[in-house]
């Protein structure tokens, strides 16, 4: 890396940089050597940063008009939608922005799973990412409560009640969380406070996430360690900046479509009914991005074990770098893992689907099978695969695709060109 010997040209720049090396940082970020074979699945990091900033900016604006009070929250949201200048736009960006954020984060996570980005030496990046993902879920859940519609209220009731499954102290914890004996005004005000706080925690973790990334540098579709800088890398600016920018614009077109033409399609109609503690909705469902975990929760007959299963489904990801025993990172060179990867993708989509359906009959059976498979994938298939799988020959560098004279040369070259 060139930033060690970087020196600003101007005297003022040197004076400033000697005291606070911000210019060195800027130089590092622009020169940062990035593998040149990164595909579009790698653009979601930038897209996620955009999502976070968008949520913070629109959220700040909404908070200026929103009233966190059980009697006034719903009305204040309608006030934003009707009387605040472009309030409808800001709220729809914020509400759909949450969905876009999760869409991007799921793609980002599954990209990591495919290319083995969580493996050494990138475990810390991955674990920070999982913490960010957990905080995102907390922020999204509490944000969904704020409009104080029926689904807000009953969603909050169902999720907070999960804590009552904890033996002995469960009930006490729930009362403490609620600030009373049911979800009510104290619950709403604390959720608002935390919903405001969490994005800034995420922002801090994102800085750590990127910092940790810049130590080993990016993984890449071939999944090999590369020399930096070298023929295999390009400087972050302008190459990656423009590519991320292009992908971000494509993403924004999808985003804009939802905001302007289908702003409520991802939400639940019941949330336009003001919260009523006396009337329980026919089906209480969380937002789409939490459905797979909701399905896991409901697939276990015992309440406590259900909660444990749901939490484990997320936390298991944190130990993934040690569950996956294969030395090869990229699924491109792991023919068996690649198949199991796509089965896992299908499994999670199925869980999401049954999570939206009533937990009975065939749906419940499917949910149980899919839940079992989810854990099987991480606890059995991945560790065993690392020992049993016959992997394809891995190239020495990005520009020199494959070891000379390998019997699988043609096949690997073919794969290689597909990645690019």
């Amino acid at each position, binding site marked *: 890396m060139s930033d060690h010997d970087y020196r600003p040209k101007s005297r003022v720049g040197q004076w400033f940089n000697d005291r606070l090396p911000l210019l060195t940082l800027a130089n590092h970020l622009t020169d940062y050597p990035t593998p040149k074979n990164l595909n579009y699945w790698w653009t979601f990091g930038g897209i996620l940063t955009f999502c976070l900033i968008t949520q913070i900016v629109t959220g700040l604006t909404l908070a200026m008009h929103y009233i966190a009070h059980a009697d006034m929250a719903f009305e204040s949201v309608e006030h934003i939608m009707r009387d605040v200048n472009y309030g409808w736009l800001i709220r729809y960006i914020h509400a759909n922005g949450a969905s876009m954020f999760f869409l991007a984060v799921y793609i980002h996570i599954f990209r990591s799973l495919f290319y083995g980005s969580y493996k050494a030496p990138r475990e810390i990046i991955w674990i920070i990412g999982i913490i960010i993902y957990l905080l995102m879920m907390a922020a999204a859940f509490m944000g969904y409560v704020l409009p104080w519609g029926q689904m807000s209220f009953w969603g909050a009731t169902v999720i907070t009640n999960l804590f009552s499954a904890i033996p002995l102290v469960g009930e006490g914890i729930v009362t403490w969380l609620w600030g009373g004996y049911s979800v009510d005004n104290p619950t709403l005000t604390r959720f608002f406070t935390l919903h405001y706080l969490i994005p800034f925690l995420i922002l801090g973790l994102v800085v750590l996430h990127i910092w940790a990334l810049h130590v080993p540098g990016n993984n890449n579709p071939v999944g090999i360690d590369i020399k930096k800088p070298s023929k295999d890398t390009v400087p972050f600016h302008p190459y990656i900046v423009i590519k991320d920018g292009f992908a971000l614009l494509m993403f924004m077109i999808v985003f*804009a479509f939802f905001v302007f033409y289908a702003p409520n399609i991802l939400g639940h109609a019941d949330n336009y009914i003001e919260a009523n503690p006396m009337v329980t909705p026919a089906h209480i469902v969380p937002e789409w991005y939490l459905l797979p975990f909701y399905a896991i929760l409901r697939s276990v007959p015992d309440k406590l074990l259900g909660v444990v299963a749901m939490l484990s489904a997320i936390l298991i990801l944190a130990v993934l770098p040690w569950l996956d025993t294969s030395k090869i990172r990229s699924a491109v060179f792991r023919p068996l893992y690649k198949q199991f990867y796509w089965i896992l993708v299908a499994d999670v989509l199925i869980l999401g689907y049954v999570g939206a359906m009533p937990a009975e009959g065939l749906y419940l059976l499917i949910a149980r099978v899919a839940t079992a498979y989810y854990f099987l994938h991480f606890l059995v298939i991945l560790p065993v695969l690392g020992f049993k799988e016959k992997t394809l020959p891995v190239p020495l560098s990005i520009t020199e695709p494959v070891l000379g004279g390998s019997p699988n040369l043609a096949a690997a070259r073919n794969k290689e060109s597909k990645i690019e």
Partner: protein
Amino acid sequence: MKNLFKLFSIIILIITPNSNSFAAEKAEYLKTDWSFKGLFGKFDRASLQRGYQVYTEVCASCHSMKYLSYRNLAEPGGPEFSEAQAKAIAASFEVTDGPNSDGEMFTRPGKLSDKFVMPYDNVKAAQAANGGAYPPDMSVLVKARGGGVDYIYSLLQGYEEAPNNVSLDDGVYYNKYMYGNKIRMAAPLSDGLVEYGDGTNATVEQMSKDVTTFLMWSAEPHLESRHQMGFKAIVYLIILTVLVYFSMKRIWSRVESEV
């Protein structure tokens, strides 16, 4: 590029089935040609004005619309009554105001800034007058029901004789689009119930369409500017995307790698 298309088609695939799974609910809704759907969808002004008439003459005796003000009736993108008309509409309602300097509440004719007058003082009063059922507030009703406008439009025309195997209590009616088929609201519309000022024939179908259009507007008063801005925003984004794409190609041509 090929990967990119794959990526975005996957995004669309992931999103669509989830949204549909909620809406699925038995009987096929009646369809009509809503003018406010689509890229350039706009409200039919005359239909909104007729819809307001149906609301105020029929629905408003039980259903409140607490988030709307009389001024909204004259705002762009809505029924667009003239300001004089909207003032006259407001003035035709008695509004309780106060307390005055003597500490007394008093009534006065409505003003543009007043919210729509509520038919009942509170939820309990509404329930008491309607056999225990609360007639829901209509401000955001179409957004609060799974089928949206199609559901409301169908429900208004969905009253039928109950099948033999269904027994109905007193004050309960059979509606084939209602969740569970039982509804506490008697069929609100009948042919010729209102007399339209513009001479439109007030059939149940016509009134259903007009009042549903009005409810769509009341739930989404900025729908027209949303559609207009959305079109501009997306066209802008597409042009910018194309420009950035060619810049990217140019920049990446310096290294022997594909983007």
